[in-house]
């Protein structure tokens, strides 16, 4: 037959090269799915902090898998051992793959040595969500905080990650900050590595 390319048939599905996958997913589809995730968890919990914990756990699973995938696909199986390395990996590569753009900014906390912040004007997951007044400090970005936590912990940098709204003058909507607080052992190891 003319024009038929030779497609290599792989005997074992594990030998097939890992494709890039679909680069674009419908935003509306994701928004509906995420909204349903939040609603489902709302029926199962009694208070807001439990809801945040559940969203974080859901994100944790995503983060663990994203780390494995990206290490294999984009970084050629190299492992980050330095703090700044893993942070910039999260800030650029992970954000680019998940949200289509790098995060707005990565800052080091001024008060404590072990705090770092990734800021974003508006998280993609929060784009269509308006939090009712009576939910107070609840942040659907807990899902994204969970993703970051999953990536960091599985890379060997245990941390506590939370999402916060930070009001900005001149803007109606507050910006979102993901606060990363690394565990003691990470800082000690970092100091040892010099």
């Amino acid at each position: 037959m003319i024009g038929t390319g030779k497609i290599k048939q792989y005997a074992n599905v594990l030998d097939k090269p890992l494709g890039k996958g679909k680069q674009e997913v419908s935003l509306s589809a994701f928004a509906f799915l995420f909204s349903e995730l939040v609603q489902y968890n709302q029926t199962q919990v009694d208070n807001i902090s439990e809801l945040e914990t559940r969203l974080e756990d859901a994100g944790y699973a995503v983060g663990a898998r994203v780390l494995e995938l990206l290490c294999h696909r984009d970084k050629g199986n190299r492992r980050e051992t330095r703090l700044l390395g893993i942070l910039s990996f999260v800030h650029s590569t992970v954000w680019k793959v998940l949200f289509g753009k790098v995060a707005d900014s990565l800052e080091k906390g001024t008060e404590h040595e072990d705090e770092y912040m990734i800021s974003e004007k508006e998280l993609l997951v929060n784009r269509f969500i308006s939090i009712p007044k009576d939910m107070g400090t609840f942040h659907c970005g807990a899902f994204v905080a969970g993703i970051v936590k999953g990536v960091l912990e599985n890379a060997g940098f245990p941390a506590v990650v939370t999402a916060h709204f930070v009001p900005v003058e001149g803007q109606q909507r507050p910006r979102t900050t993901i606060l990363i607080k690394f565990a003691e052992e990470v800082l000690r190891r970092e100091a040892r590595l010099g």
Partner: protein
Amino acid sequence: MDTNDSLRVASLWYSMHAISQQLSPTNGCSGIELLEVDTFDLHCFQSLTGTKFFVVCETGTQHMEALLKVIYELYMDYVLKNPFYEMEMPIRCELFDINLTTAIQKDRVALLGR
């Protein structure tokens, strides 16, 4: 107009819309699209699911159909994708209100030049 009044108007309009569908002399009528009165106009848009959007405006205002379609899109985005919105309840979504006012302001500037 407070919430109770809005609910009253909405239920009144819903019934009128349904009755008009039955009363219409032509077949396949889908309800009232435009209500013209001395002092105001009322444009109505019905989505495929039967949700109705209506806007009350001054007599002779143009492009209300387009505005209603824009409002329908805003509804879909900021209300239906909001996990904290319960169906059939009055809409209390901040993002929806903000974008709605912006859309109306833009419209007003385009139409009246101010």
